């Protein structure tokens, strides 16, 4: 059997200690043998939420690169002091990004220093959002080992049919519409499927779409 979760329910599952975390975790744990189906649109939305913060934090740090890159010896006291000073300054200026600045600090200390002879600091910083987003897949593996992403792009011809069939249904936004198209376009291969949502409107629209 298959089951799917709306975007915010996946976020609750990912974020330990969040409002519905325990309930969603229980739901997932009870569906031991079932496969969790994640709409690609939902997944991209989650990556967007998570990516925005790391990208902003990286940008705030980015502006200090010229002053750091000037110091050739990355193991020198001068480099360490500058790095600490930047971290302190950023933490006080943008407190909502503190954890992200700490991550950048830690990664430079751990991974950049040993590679500094062959790597530009700019390139290392560009790697951080990639690595951060990549780790999300591993987090998904932790909440459910057997999960699968589905996209309307896997069968465009059928995807277009689903898209047209849903044109008359009024969705809150286009993202909701695309989530449903992702699922419907793949329904032949993921049937029977239960879709969980805490959004009444979405649930109503999904029921209407079922008749199609």
């Amino acid at each position, binding site marked *: 059997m298959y089951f799917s979760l709306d975007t915010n329910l996946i*976020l609750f599952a*990912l*974020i*330990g*200690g*969040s409002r519905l975390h325990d309930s969603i975790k229980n739901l997932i744990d009870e569906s031991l043998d079932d496969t969790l189906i994640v709409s690609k649109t939902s997944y*991209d939305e989650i*990556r*967007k*939420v*998570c*990516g*925005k*913060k790391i*990208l902003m934090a*990286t*940008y705030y740090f*980015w*502006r200090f*690169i*010229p002053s750091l890159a000037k110091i050739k010896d990355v193991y020198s006291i001068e480099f360490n002091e500058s790095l600490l000073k930047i971290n302190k300054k950023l933490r006080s200026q943008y407190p*909502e990004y*503190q*954890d*992200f600045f700490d*991550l950048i600090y830690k*990664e430079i200390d751990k*991974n950049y220093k040993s590679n500094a002879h062959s790597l530009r600091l*700019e*390139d*290392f910083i*560009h*790697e*951080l*959002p*990639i*690595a*951060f*987003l*990549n*780790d*999300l897949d*591993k*987090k998904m593996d932790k909440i459910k080992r057997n999960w699968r992403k589905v996209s*309307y*792009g896997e069968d*465009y011809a059928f*995807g*277009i049919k689903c*898209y047209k069939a849903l044109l008359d249904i009024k969705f809150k*936004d*286009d*993202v909701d*519409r*695309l989530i449903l*198209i992702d699922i419907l376009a793949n329904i032949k291969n993921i049937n029977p499927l239960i879709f969980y949502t805490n959004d009444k409107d979405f649930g109503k629209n999904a029921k209407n779409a079922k008749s199609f």
Partner: protein
Amino acid sequence: MSNLFHNEEEYYPEINPNLNKFLRRSVEDIYEIILYLYRPIVSARNYLKKWRKESYLRGMENLFKLSDREKDIFLKTMIDIASFKFDEFVDIEKISNEVEKNFSKEKKLGKTFEKFANNFQRLSEREQLIIIKKALKESSIKIHDMRIEVEEESFSLGGYDFFVVSQLLYLLERLIDKLLRLDKLTFELASLINFISIELLRILALKEGKLTIDDIYYDIINLSQYIEPKYPVEIDNRLIKSLEA
């Protein structure tokens, strides 16, 4: 009507004017990269000479005879095709086909472009792969140079826009590195090459006011999933929790 190559002072107000200036300087480079990626044969004169197939490039000199205005019309049509929003229903295959069709439709060079496409198909699979890799390497050099320029601008002029564009260009370089490691022609190779071309057109779409820096931000998020990080990081629960805010 604005021209991608001229009208120095004309820019869309929502775009950082400094970024706009950079984009104007980059049009020529992006035009060349698009040519390399869609008609890889144009980057491989030396190989074709070695294989005694230089005649496959007959008409090549015409490519550089296109006036700025003609290049402008050629690129603008493709920019329109590539300027979709993240929450739109997008058929990437259809978009790639439409961009491809635009080559044959070009008034002056349509036939030359078609001939190059046919000549490329006449090559063996091994030769095609060699040529595609050459085109990718040439493209990567140009993208890298563009990125270094954007980075310098970002340090001297500041601005989130510059940083976002440099991040996207970095991802395109990394994607090309990945493709250069493939040892046969695959569907993945073809579709990711299309992806790279479309992304470059989307950067130009910023200049045309057809997309915003937020659209490019979304592209970064999307593109990152095709790239293995060089240095894995682990997101601890504290970080995950801060996402809730």
